[in-house]
């Protein structure tokens, strides 16, 4: 039988506010346990939540960016359950009336086509703390620093049909929240994590199969592998006569498999009800317009502009706009050297390669956009060749200074003096009489040999176009 996979994603994104969603405590990551948990975060008797207005603004920006409806009135509810790292015994989360409803994201598929993925809703909620199992014997430590960190949970429609589509959607959303500047998107620190709802059905059928929810996937790779494993598991199960049960599963990256966590019957009854400590969130049309004015250029619009303004290919424009930082970097380099295509090739090529090798973020790059622009200008004005530029770039990356200084110090300036080039060519011809003989008797391939010899003697600094031209003339005996 032919099977079709159906996937919907719930993505939790931490909003990058300075303070928490309902208290004044700081949200910075990595503090000593429980140093960033105030009375409100600890759920002490008598404390009350007060909504951080910055959280609402960020959610509205997200809603606008996915062309969604912004609810004029949304409501925080309490999701009640007991857990040691949930200080109040309930999580404050929007339930029946979320702040954002019915948006979409367009993703690019491998065959070059686009696909629209519906976003059912996005709602605001507070994060829980963390249970720490290492370093305690027969006990569990509780760190409440993360408790009360603002999250927006973005719930997609079950519109994805493969793990690859799911990853494309997740990447697109990841880029979007970073473009909007509403989240740092740091997946290692849990700022962007995903639950995947996965089911399979015979191709052609319209009803959905029974789904399993895979919890807490915190990398693109894990999402892809977990979904692929889960699809295999469900198909094998059905084909061997079994049935899929609705349940929550955990992905174990070490063993590359998903395992049952709890079934539907064991699921909590969360006893949601509107939180009486908080007023409904009321958003006026003016608030929405103000948020719209704060929206930056979004990835799709930027990509279109890169194609039309810089003459880049759709592929290059897509790569360069994958993150806002990279796009900004590229634009600064292009403006500095006035050669967009050259800038695009370098930013996607040598620069990105060096960045990947160093495992550093763009912000930590030792080569600034201005510095790279200067280097590319030296190619443009023929001070150095593209090949020499790679050497200069490496030196710049290791902190040896600016392009001009390195070219000067290492004497890398290109030789463009025809007389000097002719002299070297003459030396090379004189030193290789037999090759000259062969070339002249028709062995054209030896041209490359002579070019190599000349470049070797000039340590690559001779202008390649001039070398070609002069050498051809000399070899023909002019």
């Amino acid at each position: 039988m032919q099977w079709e996979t159906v996937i919907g994603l719930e993505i939790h994104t931490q909003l990058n506010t300075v303070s928490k969603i309902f208290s004044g405590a700081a949200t910075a990551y990595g503090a000593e346990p429980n140093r960033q948990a105030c009375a409100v975060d600890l759920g002490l008797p008598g404390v009350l939540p007060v909504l951080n207005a910055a959280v609402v603004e960020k959610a509205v920006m997200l809603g606008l960016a996915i062309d969604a409806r912004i609810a004029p009135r949304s409501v925080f509810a309490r999701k009640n359950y007991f857990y040691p790292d949930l200080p109040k015994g309930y999580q404050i989360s929007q339930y029946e009336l979320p702040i954002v409803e019915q948006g979409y994201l367009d993703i690019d598929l491998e065959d070059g086509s686009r696909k629209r993925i519906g976003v059912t809703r996005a709602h605001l909620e507070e994060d829980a703390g963390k249970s720490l199992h290492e370093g305690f014997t027969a006990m569990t430590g509780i760190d409440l620093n993360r408790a009360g960190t603002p999250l927006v949970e973005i719930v997609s429609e079950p519109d994805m049909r493969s793990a690859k589509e799911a990853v494309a959607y997740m990447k697109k959303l990841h880029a979007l929240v970073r473009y909007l500047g509403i989240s740092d998107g740091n997946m290692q620190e849990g700022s962007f994590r995903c639950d995947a709802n996965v089911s399979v059905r015979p191709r052609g059928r319209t009803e959905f199969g029974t789904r399993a929810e895979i919890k807490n996937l915190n990398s693109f790779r894990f999402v892809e592998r977990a979904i692929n494993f889960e699809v295999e598991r469900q198909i094998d199960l059905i084909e061997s006569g079994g049935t899929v049960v609705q349940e929550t599963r955990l992905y174990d990256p070490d063993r590359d498999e998903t395992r049952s966590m709890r079934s539907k019957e064991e699921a909590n009854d969360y006893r949601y009800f509107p939180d009486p400590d908080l007023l409904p969130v009321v958003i006026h049309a003016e608030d929405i317009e103000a948020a719209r004015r704060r929206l930056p250029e979004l990835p799709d619009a930027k990509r279109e502009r890169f194609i039309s303004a810089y003459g880049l290919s759709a592929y290059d424009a897509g790569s360069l706009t994958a993150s806002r930082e990279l796009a900004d970097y590229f634009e600064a380099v292009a403006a500095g050297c006035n050669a967009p295509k050259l800038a695009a090739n370098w930013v996607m090529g040598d620069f990105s390669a060096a960045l990947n090798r160093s495992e550093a973020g763009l912000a930590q790059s030792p080569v600034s956009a201005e510095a790279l622009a200067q280097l590319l200008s030296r190619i443009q004005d023929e001070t150095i060749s593209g090949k020499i530029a790679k050497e200069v770039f490496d030196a710049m990356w290791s902190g040896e200074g600016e392009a001009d200084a390195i070219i000067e110090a290492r004497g890398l300036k290109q030789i463009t003096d025809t007389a000097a080039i002719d002299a070297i060519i003459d030396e090379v011809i004189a030193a290789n009489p037999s090759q000259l003989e062969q070339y002249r008797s028709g062995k054209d391939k030896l041209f490359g040999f002579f070019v190599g010899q000349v470049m070797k003697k000039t340590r690559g600094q001779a202008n390649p176009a001039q070398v070609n031209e002069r050498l051809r003339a000399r070899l023909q005996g002019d």
Partner: protein
Amino acid sequence: MKLDTLASWARRLRARDISSRELTEFYLGRIDRLDSQLNSFISVTPDLALAAADAADERLARGEEAPLLGLPVAQKDIFCTQGVRTSCGSKMLDNFIAPYTATVVERMNTAGAVMLGKTNMDEFAMGSSNETSHYGPVRNPWDPERVPGGSSGGSAAAVAARLVPAATGTDTGGSIRQPAAFCGITGVKPTYGRVSRYGMIAFASSLDQAGPMAASAEDCALMLNAMAGFDPRDSTSVERPAEDFTAGLRADLKGLRIGLPREFFGEGLDPGVRAAIEAALAVLRERGAELIEISLPNSGLSVPAYYVVAPAECSSNLARYDGVRFGHRCDEPRDLTDLYTRSRAEGFGAEVKRRIMIGTYVLSAGYYDAYYLKAQKVRRLIADDFRRAFGQVDVIAGPTSPETPFRLGEKSADPVQMYLSDIYTIAVNLAGLPGLSMPAGTVGNLPVGMQLIGNYFDEARLLGVAHQFQQETDWHARMPAPFV
């Protein structure tokens, strides 16, 4: 030294006729001597009180003006007070020393009040007789065999016996007004949102409201001046210009339209209480008020609606008492479930458990619509009744409770009978309106309270009516004999 009212003490302190230290020592002495008969305090804090009194005396010497400067008060043990045990009447919080101070307490401290201690109360404010307290029942100063009402029974008894001139209370479903009535004092439940709930341990968040309890309306007005005000730490706090609640005390009653809901004078009302209320209403009429019969047709639904909404909210509010971070923790838990179940089973009393179970039930999947949602609709109907009534009248009046204080243990076996003690007060909480109870007569030796209900933010008018009544009568000035 002779007993006096809060307002009078305030004048005498400003006149330097007496010092705050002398006054504080006087009342601490009364607590020390007399509270063994009442059990109205859970904690007495003489050292803190004397230090605060000395600080107040310095401020008085500098000629500073502050509404409660140098005046002794007591705080219901539901308000967090930094460095002082805040038990909420529960074993669960017997070991809880609050690390911060409630807004109400902070405001009163800033206003110069001198806290003598923390008063006894029903556990987590759940009760109408003060019998659910982990610290034992409070006795009614008018008859030690009878209850003082609840949940603010400690505050009511302490004020009635003049162990303190004024105290704070909280009122979720009559918890200020019913004990005020039972103990023969004046108590105000302000409009929901008038007084900050920050630092006041939550029972039912959409209903809880703090207010003053004192001998007279004038004293309550002084207290409310210090207690009320917008608080950015409470999202349900209402931002309004500050109001002087003493300003309206001398308002004339001429032409005042007082509505008498026929539902508050029907079946279940003790004839003695009815007679006392009717006599009190006659006094108001003589002063020029017009009495108009009205109807609040949905008021009969208020007790059932309340006993869905309040337990629902409490079941969630009390989830934080899990033995993990603060409060009672069972000995040597075997695992997490054992920690939760034993800590909570040991830490909570029977009435609290009953309400947590009711609340958990009404919020459960499949029952939510039938109970919680339905109760919220009833709540809207009740508020609509009042809205219509206030189109016709300025103030609504009736008995605070259908009967005089009952005997200790009399209703302990029948929670529903106990709940009916709040049949006239609860609708006011559901609607979020202000209400006041004032001493209006007696049945035998026992006090009867009259409830006045006002429109939203109309506390000043209620205080004015009560003050005018107290100019004509001396019920509020009478004291139980053993404490004179």
